[in-house]
Each structure stands twice: as structure tokens, then as C-alpha cells.
């Protein structure tokens, strides 16, 4: 495939006055001259520090989503009536005897009721100190619903019956950290699935529009213009509200992704169309046609590889939009519904400002959303710059 990209981009390289053999040049320049486009893209991307950081954050989040059962210290649905609305526990290196240890730990909680407001609150009790163990045993789970295990990344080990709420607990005493981690699986995968669906639509419709032109092009362009001038969120809301309420969570999940991608494909289609139109006139396409290549071969062997990198960049920038839309829909109660856990579903608890003012840690799922979206945006920006290694 590398060869094809090289072939495809030959015409965009500025012609050098006299062909220089790579060995005549200083080594760094020679490296650039003989580098494959993929290498050039990688070098260019690497220079974009913040994009690299964004990529690492995105990868970490997806790892968490893939291994959420292992990462989460508790079962996200376990209700603990004795520990409702526990504030985030602080990690401490001072043990019960007041000595410094290298092992982090948490203090036990002692509840007390406010005599006036009757509200239950918790203070940490420095007399009880429970060390945090890595790869500790905890509640049983099945990884991906298949592999039974009880090893968690972090936990209190032998003291696992003690409260352990690093990010606090919600109104039913469920562990926020575990819930946020499990929610990552749903929220992040909806972005990927939604983008895949809109990519399929976008490539087919954009490709037809760009390759054949004429009436098909005009119709598709009108449809895109129409969809783009629609206020998307009211439309999403209306479509999501029309999903039958008796559907199972899995159906609702796919229904929501379909709705998101039905409206989201237009940008990708525009991009693909633009690329096809630009490439149609390129010399290497003409050459391939004169050599007798079939239309399909020209598309898949010559045209697609040369704009694939642009499409990848556009996709990366489209995923955060999908994640955000799901969050917004679920937040309003029209998207996914409990018992499904997504960031938007978790944020439903934070809808009431009065509640948030008392229990601010209910906003933490939103922090996760913001971090992922920023990371995706940085990564996409870097990819977009790198996708055109022969630009400035």
C-alpha cells in the first residue's frame, strides 16, 4: 500500500531541478527524500507534542473501556445503603499509628447526622487506615462476560468490606469511580460505532456523488444541504423520543447510534466527494485508466489509499461530536436509560443544581467527557496536519 501512496502523491512533490542521488545529500535530508509517505506523516505527527499527548490519553481511555471490569474496584450496580453520597475519600500515606508509609491508603469513615438539617455526612477517621493494594482481590466479575475473575487493579485486599470510594458514591451508595469506568465502555464505543456507520454512508454517497457527478451529485448535494440546515438537536430529540419504550437496552443503544450517524454522515460525504473530484483529474488516475485498470481497481488501489489519511483525520474529529451527542441525549433522558451506564446517564443525577451544590462530585462524569473530547480534538488536529506531509 505504501507504494501506492508514493505513486499517488508523486505529482504533488515540487520538481527538483536536477535529480540528486540520496547519497549526495546530508544524511537528514536524504532520509526525508527517501522516506515513505507514512514515515513522513509519522514524523510530522510526532512534532505536534500536544497531539501526541492527546493520542496517549485517548488510548488510555479506550484501554480503561476495554478492561473496565478489571479496572473498576467495585461492581457498579452494588447498592450500599450505609454509604450514600460519600464524598471522595482522600488517599493518605500516614497509617493508623501516625507513621509514614510508602503504601497509599484510605481512612475509615464515621457517619454522623447533622442535628439541624438531619443530613448524613461522613468524616474520615484517622484511627482506621486501610492500605490500597494493586491487583487485589475484590468482588467477582466476568471479563467481557466470559472470563471469571476477582482480581482488580486496585482494592483494599483483605479489607474489601470497608468503604472504598475514591471518587465518592451516588444516591444509592454505588461507587462513582466504578460507574465512570463502566460508563466509558458504552460512551466511547457509541462514538466508534456511530462514526463507522456514518463513514459507510458517507463513503458510499460521497463516492457516488464525486465519481459520477451529474444528477446523482445534485440530488445528494441537495440532501446534504438540507440536513445541514436542520437544527440537529431538536431532530435528534424527536427521533430518540420515537424509539419504542419497550425496546431492550441493546436495541436502544443501536437505535441511538443509528440516529446520530443518520445526521452525522454529511460532513464525511462532503469530504469524500471533494477528494474524489480532486483525484479524478490526477495524472496517475488517467495513467491507470489508460493501462486498462477496471473502475473498482482504480478506486480501491489508487484513489482510496491516497486520501485515506485525510479521512482518518476527519473521523477522529467526528468521534467527539458523537460522544457529546450521546451524553447530551442521555442527560436529557431521551437517550440511553438506566440500568445502562453511560456518562450521560450518570450526569442525569447532576441535573438538579441544588443536588450538585451539596454533592459536587456528581459532576465528575462530565470531567471525563471533557477530557476525552479535548484529547480527541488535539489528536484530530495533529492528524489533520500530518495527513498532508507535502504541505507547508
Amino acid at each position: 500500500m505504501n507504494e501506492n501512496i508514493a505513486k499517488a502523491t508523486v505529482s504533488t512533490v515540487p520538481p527538483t531541478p536536477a535529480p540528486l542521488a540520496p547519497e549526495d545529500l546530508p544524511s537528514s535530508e536524504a532520509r526525508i527524500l527517501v522516506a515513505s509517505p507514512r514515515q513522513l506523516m509519522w514524523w510530522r505527527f510526532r512534532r505536534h507534542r500536544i497531539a501526541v499527548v492527546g493520542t496517549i490519553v485517548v488510548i488510555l481511555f479506550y484501554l480503561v473501556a476495554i478492561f473496565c471490569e478489571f479496572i473498576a474496584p467495585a461492581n457498579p450496580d452494588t447498592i450500599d445503603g450505609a454509604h450514600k453520597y460519600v464524598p471522595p475519600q482522600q488517599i493518605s500515606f500516614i497509617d493508623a499509628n501516625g507513621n509514614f508509609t510508602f503504601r497509599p491508603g484510605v481512612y475509615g469513615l464515621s457517619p454522623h447526622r447533622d442535628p439541624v438539617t438531619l443530613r448524613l455526612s461522613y468524616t474520615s477517621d484517622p484511627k482506621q487506615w486501610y492500605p490500597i493494594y494493586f491487583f487485589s482481590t475484590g468482588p467477582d466479575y466476568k471479563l467481557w462476560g466470559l472470563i471469571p475473575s476477582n482480581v482488580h487493579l486496585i482494592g483494599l485486599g483483605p479489607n474489601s468490606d470497608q468503604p472504598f470510594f475514591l471518587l465518592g458514591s451516588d444516591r444509592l451508595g454505588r461507587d462513582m469511580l466504578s460507574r465512570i469506568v463502566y460508563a466509558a465502555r458504552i460512551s466511547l464505543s457509541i462514538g466508534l460505532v456511530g462514526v463507522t456507520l456514518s463513514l459507510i454512508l458517507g463513503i458510499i454517497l460521497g463516492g457516488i456523488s464525486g465519481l459520477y457527478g451529474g444528477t446523482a451529485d445534485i440530488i445528494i448535494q441537495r440532501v446534504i444541504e438540507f440536513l445541514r440546515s436542520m437544527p440537529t438537536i431538536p431532530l435528534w430529540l424527536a427521533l430518540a423520543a420515537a424509539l419504542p419504550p419497550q425496546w431492550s437496552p441493546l436495541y436502544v443503544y443501536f437505535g441511538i447510534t443509528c440516529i446520530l450517524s443518520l445526521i452525522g454522515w454529511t460532513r464525511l460525504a462532503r469530504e469524500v466527494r471533494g477528494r474524489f473530484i480532486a483525484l479524478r483529474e490526477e495524472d496517475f488516475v488517467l495513467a491507470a485508466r489508460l493501462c486498462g485498470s477496471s473502475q473498482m481497481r482504480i478506486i480501491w488501489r489508487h484513489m482510496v489509499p491516497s486520501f485515506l489519511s485525510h479521512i482518518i483525520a476527519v473521523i477522529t474529529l467526528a468521534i467527539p461530536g458523537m460522544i457529546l451527542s450521546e451524553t447530551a441525549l442521555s442527560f436529557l433522558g431521551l437517550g440511553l436509560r438506566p440500568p445502562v451506564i453511560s456518562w450521560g446517564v450518570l450526569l442525569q443525577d447532576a441535573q438538579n443544581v441544588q443536588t450538585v451544590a451539596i454533592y459536587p462530585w456528581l459532576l465528575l462524569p462530565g470531567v471525563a467527557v471533557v477530557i476525552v473530547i479535548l484529547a480527541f480534538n488535539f489528536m484530530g488536529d495533529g492528524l489533520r496536519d500530518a495527513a498532508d506531509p507535502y504541505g507547508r
Partner: protein
Amino acid sequence: MLQYILRRLLIAIPTIVAISILSFVLIQLPPGSFLDDYAAQLAQQGEEISGQQLEALKQAYGLDEPVYVQYYKWVKGIVTRGDFGLSLEWNVPVSQLIWERMGWTLALAISTLLCTWLLAIPIGVYSATHQYSKLDYLFTSLGFIGLGIPGFMLALVLMWFALSHFGIDVGGLFSQQYQNAPWSAGKVLDLLRHAWIPILVGGSEGTAGLIRIMRANLLDELHKPYVISARARGLSERTLVWEYPVRVALNPFVSGVGFALPDLVSGGVILSVVLSLPTAGPLLLNALTAKDMYLAGALVLLVGILTIFGTLISDILLAWLDPRIRFSAR
């Protein structure tokens, strides 16, 4: 110019028709006819609807007839009598509910747009003329964060902050005492005290995007020969920048009106739910959750038409600003 405007108006008509069809489909989407729901709801409240009344309503909405006749009757009602159908939940004609809401929606969207421009243009110009200065870095990073944080999160955090630190509830557009009071100087002041949050939050994303566009465009312009030659002739830096390159860089702002308005209106839906504003958003959400489909359909239709007019205005402005568009469209 007149010819161009006429052409654009003609193009807008099929789009409006398409939106009306879409809104009508939305009304039809929930299973069961709305009359069944209506009868069931009345029965729940202990009222009995007579078969005769039911029949009369059926006639009025053409529910026995094929879908396209129903659609025709619905559109005809809107165009000739301003009748959008009956709101099930409120038990009043939809038209009584929506106009005030639509007015607030439009007012908020326009003031947000103006505020976006007022902020984005000077900041963008400053960032471009002082590239890589400390303030430029500050604005650029603020812009990135503004793009990344969803508006409703920002609104939640602001509300939480205002409530926990100053003890004030900033939701809504009016304080309790002015809610139903007649218009007065005090009410206007109260409105201004509340409106800045939705305007600022709603505009944050757009402002961030426009600052980036303005900065990039102006940077491209600033190195062109005409700028250098103007500088060589001794024009003051201020006239030089504002008189020529800024004007060229302004094009995306005008073409952005078309997409900014739909974005503001649709983003405003969620924002106004969080901030409980008297705009179309919360009404639409309620209508959808209660399956009050005539109300929901009317709101989607009106918001859609609003955005089409936004696009129309921006196209006309752009053609007026840039003769190339005017002539190429012939």
C-alpha cells in the same frame, strides 16, 4: 442582486416543504393515533369523551383519511389559520403555546450571535497581530477549552458555582418577583442580570471557533504584498489592519450566520433545559417525553424554518459583500 435574492428565495421553498414533511412524519411516528391517546388520557382523568365528539375531532384532523390528506389538512391549517393542531398535554391549541417561546428563542439566539462576534472579532485580530504573544497563547488555549467543553456542562458548573459561592440561583430569565410582572425598567435590568449566562455559555463554542478562523485568515492576509505596500506608504498600523485585511478575513463570519443560527438554536435546546429558560427547548423536551406530538412537530417545524431564514440572510449578506458570489450564481 434582486435576481439573486429571488433565486435564493425560490430554492428555500422546497427546503421548507421538506422540513414540514419531516415534522409531520415526527408527529406520526409514535404508535397509535393521537386521538386514542387523547381519549385514554381523558378517561384517566375521569372524563368520558362521547363518540360524537371523537368523530368530530377525527373529521377535523382527517384521521380516517390517507396520510397525504392528513398532511395537506395540517399544512392548510397552519398556512390559512395559523392552526398547528391541539396540544394534548396542555389541552389548548398549540399556537397559544409557541409564539412567546419562539420569540425568546430568536431573541436569545440573535443576542448570542452578536455577543459572539463582539468577542471573537477583536480577540481574533489581536491574536493574529500579536502572534505568539502571551495573550495570544491565553486566548488560543481558552479557545480550545471552549470548543471542548459542552455548553450544558459549562452551564451546570457556572450555576453550581454561583449557588455555592454567592448563594444565588441564576436559572431562568427572571427572578421570582418579576416573573409575571409587567415590563418596567426593573424587569429589564433583572433580565440582563439573568441573560448573560445563557448568552455567554451558548456563545462559548461559537466564539472559540470564530477566534480560530479569524486568527488563521488574518494571518494569511497579513503577509500579502498589498499589506506590505500599504505599510511602505506609511499607513498607520491601525488603519492598515482594520481597513483591508480584516475586511477580507470577515467573510467566514457572514457565511457562518447560516450555520451559526441552527447551531445556536439546537445547542440552546439543551442549555435552556439546564438553565430552565422560557425558550422552545424545554417545551420541546416536555412535548417529546409526554408524546405531545402536535406541539413537538410545530416546534421542530418552526425552529427549522428559523434556521432556513438564517441561511437565507447569510447568503444574501455574503452576495452583497462579495460580488464574485453574486455573479457566479447566475
